[in-house]
């Protein structure tokens, strides 16, 4: 389908190049979405695992709310940010492994024989991951509401939370795509996953930064961008409209997306080099 779109694009007049880029992106994106939706195991595990941890830690760590200056008296309100970011990290693996499979099977090489543009291929390939990110964000939000999490910023805040969550997912998906393009194998992409997980551990995922006792851990959490992704989502739930937290959250998510896409584009250009 993507190859057909690319072939069709070759015959388009020069004036329709912009439209053809969109068509190419949509064609590749459609293929990516269909492929992701056919892999149910890929959909369920990344969605359920963060929820299991949320259910367990939300209760097991509820004593933390008794620590003086803890920002809320319901630990689930504090913890709900974690599934959103953790789910986004899983999305990066889905995106990366899918793209790596295309590299390993030679599909990308065959596409290199067509006039398909690298940008269309790159963004389109992440389409499945983007849809997965949207589904996850909606499910996590519904679970949050069902388990008694109160979103202080209201309906508007919930919408911003969804947008931010999808942006974070897309950022991590781009990172997964970059890893796939750099290493070319699904195994290498999966091997990176523990490192992503580590960034979640070494952040303010379980306690607010000002309540982390170990100085070195607090320092690491402060320099870890994942802390700001979590805190931006968390701010909408327990603080309300916190401009600084939101700017930092959206800022880091956008930087992740833009930098990953920029490096991916360069890597894609090498992969698609007409040999």
């Amino acid at each position, binding site marked *: 389908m993507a190859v057909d779109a690319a072939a069709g694009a070759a015959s388009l007049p020069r004036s329709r190049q912009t439209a053809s880029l969109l068509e190419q992106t949509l064609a590749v994106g459609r293929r990516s979405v269909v492929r992701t939706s056919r892999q149910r195991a890929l959909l369920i*595990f990344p969605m359920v695992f963060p929820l*299991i*941890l949320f259910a*367990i*830690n939300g*209760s*097991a*760590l*509820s*004593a*933390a709310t*008794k*620590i*003086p200056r803890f920002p809320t008296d319901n630990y689930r309100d504090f913890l709900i940010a974690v599934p959103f970011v953790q789910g986004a990290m899983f999305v990066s693996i889905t995106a990366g492994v899918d793209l790596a499979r295309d590299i390993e099977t030679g599909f990308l090489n065959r596409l290199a024989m067509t006039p398909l543009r690298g940008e269309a291929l790159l963004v389109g390939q992440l389409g499945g991951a983007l849809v997965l990110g949207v589904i996850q964000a909606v499910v996590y939000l519904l679970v949050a509401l069902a388990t008694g999490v109160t979103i202080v910023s209201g309906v508007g805040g919930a919408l911003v939370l969804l947008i931010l969550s999808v942006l974070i997912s897309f950022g991590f998906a781009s990172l997964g795509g970059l890893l796939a393009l750099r290493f070319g194998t699904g*195994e290498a992409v999966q*091997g990176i996953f*523990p490192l992503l*997980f*580590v960034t979640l*551990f*070494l952040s303010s*995922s*379980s*306690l607010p930064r000002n*309540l*982390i*006792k*170990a100085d*070195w*851990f607090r320092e690491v*959490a402060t320099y870890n961008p994942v802390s700001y992704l979590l805190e931006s989502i968390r701010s909408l739930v327990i603080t309300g409209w916190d401009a600084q937290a939101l700017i930092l959250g959206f800022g880091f998510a956008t930087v992740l997306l833009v930098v990953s896409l920029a490096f991916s584009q360069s890597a894609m250009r090498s992969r698609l080099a007409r040999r």
Partner: protein
Amino acid sequence: MSRFFNVARGVAWRSIHNTLVNPAILVPSIVFPLFFLIAFAGGLSRISDVPNFHYPPGYTSFQFVFVFLQSAAFGGVFTGFAIARDFDSGFARRLMLSAPRRSGIIAGYAIGALLRWALTGTVVTIAALIAGMNVYGSASQLFGLLGLGIAMNMVAVLWACGVAMFLRTEQAGALIQMPVFVLLFLAPVYVPITLLEGWIHDVARLNPVTTVLEAGRGLLAGSPVKVALAFAGLLVAGAIMGTFARLGLASAEKAG
């Protein structure tokens, strides 16, 4: 009997050799417990300020026991992944054709899991000592803690072995891992059971891992509790899982 030991020795040697020469297998099994230790003992140490939290050796020691036992269980789980991989690659079929006493295969994998955990457990212990873990238990009490770890490792590897041999595919990984993971985290991981509230308290009270964890923490603190009960529970679990693994082997033999 010597044929049993020959098979067990060969499988164990291969298992540990594959672990040591393959960083993709070795590194995660060491790095994951280390990060759990860092994240829990470092990031959550403020939890010890919660009213009525009382564990004299401190929060690093409190978390060390969990990570130590978790690494033991996951030493078994990771070995289960290797068994499933052996079935996927066809190696296990060749192994069963050539092994004169097939029960030695299970013993070999179990010894491999134990040796593998010996490495991980040592690294985790050294890291905890560097991080300032206090040890109040006597030498014999520490041997007791080590014994709990060994028993936990055996129960987990027999479970993993059974699942891997029944399903004979790498896709069994999630089924091997998830129940162990959930069971471990449904124990009082972050605070003593008395500070847990709601459903998690009820579940933790019924969870057999809780007894093992409390016994381990008691031994490290030099004030043993429920040690006999923990060992008895692990013995019973070992017997059940051993039977399960043997049935798994029989199923694999039947499948040819």
